[in-house]
């Protein structure tokens, strides 16, 4: 919640470890995450409108959870308040290792 009473970050599900910025969030912005009992998160990187911000530290290799589902994995450690996006997240869906000859793929 900002000084003007507007909500700054939206968390869609109880299992999510990221929130979505409802406006451009400069570094240093203090977020109070309503959905986490007003947990205080200090924005560590500039997070543009509708991009994702980590609600807590996320270890390298850990799942990124949005909508209560795993959307990918951290490719490096992400601090709480950090921008979560293509530079630090991987996802292997759509890139199955497909056997030669067009057989069914395996992940």
């Amino acid at each position: 919640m900002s000084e003007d009473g507007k909500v700054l970050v939206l968390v869609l599900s109880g299992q999510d470890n990221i929130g979505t910025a409802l406006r451009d969030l400069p570094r240093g912005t203090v977020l109070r995450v309503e959905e986490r009992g007003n947990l205080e998160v200090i924005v560590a990187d500039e997070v543009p409108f509708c991009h994702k911000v980590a609600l807590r530290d996320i270890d390298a290799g850990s799942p990124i959870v949005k909508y209560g589902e795993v959307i990918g994995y951290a490719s490096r450690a992400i601090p709480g308040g950090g921008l979560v996006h293509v530079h630090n997240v991987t996802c292997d869906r759509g890139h199955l290792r497909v056997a030669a000859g067009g057989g069914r793929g395996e992940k």
Partner: protein
Amino acid sequence: MTEFWGYRRPDGSVGVRNHVAIIPSVYCANHVARRISEQVAGTISISHQVGCSQVGADFELTAVTLGNVGCNANIAGVLVVGLGCEKFRASELAERIARSGKPVEVISIQDLGGTPQAIEQGTCIAQAMVQGFSTQRQQKIDASALIVGLKCGGTDATSGIAANPAVGIASDKLISCGATAVFCELTELYGTEELLARRACDERVAAEIRGAIADMERNVSILTGDETYASRRELLAAGNIEGGVTTIVEKALGGMCKAGNARLQGVLDYGSAPPGKGLYLMKTKGHDSESVTGLIAGGAQIVLFTTGRGSPAGSAVSPVIKITGNPRTFERMVANMDINAGTVMEGTESLESVGSRIFDEVLAVASGKRTKAELLGHTELFSIPRVGAYGMVV
């Protein structure tokens, strides 16, 4: 009782528009078809890249799809324009469309002696058809006659938070009125297969959902696995990434929201009509033109199209309603956007309220309200997929 004003067709289907369509059987007839349509107000023309140099499953998909498009209830009558030497005979296309009971005429460019003669003859035929249908009046029709296509394109992170969930609410409401909703784009559903399978009406449909998504993912993985094209592996578009979408699964979970919470009644082949009412998944790739063409071939009279980044594209056959969940996009591209779901991002409106507005808009458009895309003349969304080796739809 939820109703709209529609046009009854001979086969009992109902259109929300009363087009006379000029349809080429082969791409060589595209220009003549377009010129005829330019001459006669009240016609639409279709342009495509198929109809010749095709065999097997690829040829069959073209024939069935073009035929089904001609059968769409928004089209009152059809003039088929053939060249004369093509694989896909104009007479076959005409026969497929005539199964709907609507009037179909055929001209052949080579038989008539070339472009000017074909345009002249086509103009006379189209003029008579349009005048005939111009006396048809709309009737009060139950909303259950509607088949609404659900699409997203130019996705950003607001799509999965605002626009798609609002469409999902509208879709559920339409289904509760007895109508049908069809979503599609298997390339945009990786990661949702179990969530969707759980909503299947029976185990057979659940297996079809899992199988359809898995088949598409395998086919795409064959392409992305080719090291020669390592720089072309990214599944997301630049606009998706710039708009805050990070992975294909994130995009899929957001995209799935437009299908609301209704039970899934079945999985449809590309361009096929749903066998009953309710929610269906159609097997299309995440290609806007191909998807909308497939939905229209399957009978969709209206398409709900969410777009975070701002796609202006429309269809000549079925009105496309544009919904954006990005308030900045709505403000900048208000000439292209019908519904602003960005109010949800701003915290000034609930999803339920936006969903209700979308539901109302569907009925208004069904009864004749023109969409922004129609008014600006957008007709990009027509293309038919090709079938390549091993039956892979490319």
